[in-house]
């Protein structure tokens, strides 16, 4: 029994529950299937109509597909009609069944009845497959030239589909298109222009050149539309055929882009559209919107651009939210082209940030990111922070990332930078990108004036914070490092009080600090990296605080000796052992040298791939104490005392310190975290060359070690602390267990062969520097240079130091010099090893820019010089 569609719908609507509805549908589907099997021709179209409804509700209707085909081949018009409709709705282009339709399609395309042709074209246009397109292309082409506008317009759109599926046929169709534009019928014009838009997207010259020639006709058509009087059939609220206008504007945009000749032809009409169109109704605004987009994309005159931006400014003040949304959207696209003009509207944009409408807020946010620069950073960041407080979760990750980037780029002062990042971390710590805590730590450590301020602020934040995110990480590190500043007496004038910022002065007892850090270690919610940091922090505090607390800390640390987590256990065991070597402990745990922040490109997400390069004017102060560095490390590694300047010869492993060697060898051994660089070079060397290796590992005074990849920093437990091992203070980089950066060396160090390629690089005021270069066998791009400094003056030079900068294709590592004092009258010399790697060996020579500092008889002297290495090196 076949019920009418109407009744089916009534039944479905009458169902009270989903189960009941399903039952009704299933019953009906069964009835339909029976009817199909019985080849019930009369009711077929009714059944397919019901199927459409059922399909729309979301139920499977595959059994109806063949029926559609049967309907299509039927001679009756109503049958065909519903058949094609069913075809379009129930099938999609992926179904193989469609191939069966091709033949009937072809027949229908040649049918005398225009509506049937129309049906066929519509079906082809909506779901045509590649095969179908290829087969029916000739018919479509013919129909494009038909005299019947009804057919022509449909043929144009079907052609779009055909051409997209079979791009090779493009050339056949291009000539036909010109004819489309001469048509008076707006439908044909509309579809013709649409076809052109589609083809222009393919953007080949074969298409663009003939189209560009058509620009004058397009302009003419547009002009007619704009200036014509009232045309009742195409009028929408007083504007003549806005759809066609918008389409033509879009086509002009695509044709004028990058082509000044075409753009010239459009200038007048665009100005006309911009001035004549009424903007009180949505229609007019739609046209203006499109016109503005066109103006900003083509090579327009500056006057026109200004007009466009003014229109956008007017949009921004419109009460209608739609218009404002559209204005914000467009502004963010054009802001790169003309920042100044957009800046004028900054206040309005900031107000949009507070709009109740979330779409507008999002657009305003995007726009503000592009508007930030040095002058408005404070205000805008304040607005952004306010916004962060109330924003939805979906905004936060992007907002936080952008805030950090923007802060790092344009921060007016370090203190402000620290403050802002702190605020961001306390508000939304979970979304901070990984490099940010590392950068913050590096920033703090490189600004001594901020140490006290930062550690106090961080302490306060930590007491209130319970998120255990990056904030805890940074805070714990700073407390460990600068704990002494935290508990110091601050009744004196606090430093760092600039520009009227309020200064912090809190009084905190040592016990409180230790309590807080211990709490972090013990808290089960802390992540493992955070606890690692906290353990290390506690250890550092043992030297900074009074000995009674040291005992207490020792006890705490020892409780982790058998912790299940290997990282914590390792630290605990090692630190507990460290308590046995009192003499060394103080020095080991003293201030860390200034950390180098990772390069900017890493922050932006693109791996640097190259090591961080420091120019001659590095922020790292001069390594005046590099010799004691060597000594201390020699001590640590049981290499014996090394009082004399030349380090490489003083390597004597003591048997009693074999355990130390092993212990710290373990430290430098393959770390548990997946650090790509293997520090095995450090551990498995024969002792004689060990010292040399370690010196190399420490790198040069002004240049940090090669950092293989940013991910290593991120993965390591230390959270990406790239130890710039320029020793600023007389103390070593602390033997933090997971400092794989220490071990970044891959090239085997060898002293340069004597007598090869020596030349004088610098000779001024009695100071001479001789460079002796040697290539490593098998690796011509690596050069090891020994620099020898001699002093012909009558007075000795002290605090001698050399810093070098290299262009991008070179990498340089400098070992500490053998000493800082160059005796007078060439009585002695100072040597220093420099390793250079030339990534463009053969094509570009080695060039160094030297910065030489020393203290002579008349006071400190500083000089710069360029050294070009002889070709062939």
């Amino acid at each position: 029994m076949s019920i009418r569609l109407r009744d089916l719908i009534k039944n479905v609507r009458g169902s009270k529950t989903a189960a009941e509805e399903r039952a009704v549908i299933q019953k009906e589907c069964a009835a339909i299937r029976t009817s199909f099997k019985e080849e019930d021709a009369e009711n077929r179209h009714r059944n397919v109509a019901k199927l459409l409804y059922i399909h729309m509700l979301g139920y499977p209707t595959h059994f109806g597909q063949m029926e559609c085909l049967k309907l299509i081949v039927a001679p009756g018009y109503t049958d065909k009609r519903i058949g094609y409709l069913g075809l379009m709705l129930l099938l999609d282009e992926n179904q193989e069944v469609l191939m069966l339709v091709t033949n009937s399609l072809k027949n229908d395309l040649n049918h005398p009845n225009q509506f049937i042709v129309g049906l066929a074209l519509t079906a082809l246009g909506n779901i045509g497959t590649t095969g179908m397109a290829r087969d029916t292309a000739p018919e479509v082409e013919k129909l494009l030239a038909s005299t019947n506008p009804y057919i022509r317009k449909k043929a144009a759109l079907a052609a779009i589909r055909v051409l997209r599926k079979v791009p090779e046929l493009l050339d056949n169709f291009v000539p036909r298109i010109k004819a489309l534009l001469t048509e008076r019928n707006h439908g044909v014009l509309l579809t013709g222009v649409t076809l052109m838009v589609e083809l222009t997207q393919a953007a080949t010259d074969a298409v663009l050149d003939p189209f560009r020639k058509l620009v004058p006709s397009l302009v003419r058509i547009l002009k007619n539309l704009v200036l014509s009087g009232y045309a009742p059939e195409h009028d929408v609220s007083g504007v003549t055929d806005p759809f066609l206008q918008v389409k033509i504007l879009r086509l002009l945009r695509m044709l004028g882009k990058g082509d000044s000749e075409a753009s010239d032809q459009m200038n007048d009409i665009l100005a006309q559209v911009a001035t004549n169109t009424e903007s009180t109704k949505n229609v007019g605004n739609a046209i203006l919107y499109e016109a503005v987009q066109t103006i900003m994309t083509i090579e327009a005159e500056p006057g026109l651009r200004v007009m466009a931006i003014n229109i956008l400014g007017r949009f921004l003040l419109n009460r209608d939210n739609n218009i404002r949304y559209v204005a914000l959207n467009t502004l963010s696209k054009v802001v790169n082209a003309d920042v100044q003009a957009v800046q004028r509207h900054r206040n309005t944009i900031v107000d949009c940030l507070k709009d109740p409408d979330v779409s507008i807020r999002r657009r305003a946010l995007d726009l503000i990111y592009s508007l930030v620069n040095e002058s408005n950073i404070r205000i805008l960041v304040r607005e952004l922070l306010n916004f962060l407080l109330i924003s939805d979760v979906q905004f936060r990750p992007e907002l936080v990332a952008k805030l950090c980037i923007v802060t790092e780029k344009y921060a007016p002062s370090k203190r402000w930078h620290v403050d802002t990042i702190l605020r961001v971390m306390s508000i939304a710590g979970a979304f901070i990108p990984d490099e940010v805590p590392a950068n913050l730590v590096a920033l703090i450590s490189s600004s001594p004036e901020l140490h006290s301020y930062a550690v106090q602020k961080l302490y306060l934040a930590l007491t209130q914070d319970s998120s255990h995110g990056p904030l805890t990480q940074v805070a714990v590190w700073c407390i460990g490092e600068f704990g002494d500043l935290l508990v110091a007496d601050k009744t004196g004038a606090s430093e760092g009080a600039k520009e009227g910022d309020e200064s912090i002065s809190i009084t905190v007892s040592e016990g409180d600090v230790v309590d807080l850090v211990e709490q972090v270690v013990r808290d089960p919610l802390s992540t493992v990296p955070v606890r690692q940091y906290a353990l290390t922090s506690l250890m550092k505090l043992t030297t900074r605080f009074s000995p009674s607390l040291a005992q207490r800390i020792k006890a705490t640390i020892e409780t982790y000796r058998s912790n299940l987590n290997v990282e914590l256990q390792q630290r605990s065991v090692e630190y507990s052992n460290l308590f046995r070597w009192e003499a060394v402990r103080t020095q080991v745990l003293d201030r860390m040298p200034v950390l180098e922040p990772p390069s900017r490109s890493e922050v932006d997400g693109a791996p640097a791939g190259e090591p961080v390069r420091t120019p001659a004017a590095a922020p790292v102060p001069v390594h005046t104490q590099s010799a004691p560095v060597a000594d201390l490390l020699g001590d640590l590694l049981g290499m014996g005392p090394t009082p004399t300047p030349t380090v490489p010869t003083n390597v004597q492993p003591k048997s009693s310190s074999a355990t130390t060697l092993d212990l710290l060898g373990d430290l430098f051994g393959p770390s548990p975290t997946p650090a790509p660089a293997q520090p095995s070079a450090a551990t498995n060397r024969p002792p004689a060359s060990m010292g040399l290796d370690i010196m190399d590992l420490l790198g040069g005074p002004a240049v940090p070690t090669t950092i293989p990849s940013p991910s290593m920093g991120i993965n390591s437990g230390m959270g990406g602390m790239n130890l710039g091992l320029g020793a600023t203070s007389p103390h070593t980089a602390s033997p933090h267990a997971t400092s794989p950066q220490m071990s970044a060396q891959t090239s085997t160090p060898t002293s340069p062969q004597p007598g090869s390629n020596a030349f004088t690089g610098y000779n001024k005021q009695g100071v001479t520097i001789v460079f002796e270069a040697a290539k490593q066998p098998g690796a011509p791009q690596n050069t090891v240079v020994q620099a020898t400094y001699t002093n012909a003056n009558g007075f000795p030079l002290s605090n001698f130091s050399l810093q070098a900068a290299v262009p991008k294709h070179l990498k340089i590592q400098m070992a500490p010099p053998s000493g800082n004092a160059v005796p007078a009258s060439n009585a002695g010399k100072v040597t220093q090893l420099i390793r250079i790697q030339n990534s463009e060996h053969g094509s570009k020579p080695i060039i160094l820019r030297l910065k030489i500092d020393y203290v002579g008889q008349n006071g400190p002297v500083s000089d710069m010089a360029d050294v070009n290495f002889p070709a062939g090196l």
Partner: protein
Amino acid sequence: ERRAGIMLRFFLLVNKQGQTRLSQYYEHMPLADRSAFEAQIVRKCLARSEGQCSFLEYLGYKIIYRRYASLFFIVGVDASENELAILEFVHAYVETLDANFENVCELDIMFNLDKAHFILDEMVMNGHLVETAKININEALTLLLAEK
């Protein structure tokens, strides 16, 4: 896969209870996903108040909607499209429906789904606007729908 340059990606009529009254997709979306997708979009539209703008972003589509009586007319477009023009098109479609059904209401569309589809297909093909002059559409439709 996304096809570049399509004006409309889908056209939906959904009522306030989330029931779809008409759906036309111009790029393929699997049947199973459709109802959830439509319900989600309607929820988003319902959550907005009168004064807010008619544009949303959802899953990479730009959604433009307008409520007429009990139905939401929802159009999904790609990012480069002129939103205001789409609003005009929706209004044109509504006016055409009105002319053909005499004060069209949701029930009319429900019971004459095929007719509503025909009207839509006269105006939009393969995601592009074909004809927007109501007089032409009506002319074609009277002939189309009358022939028996």
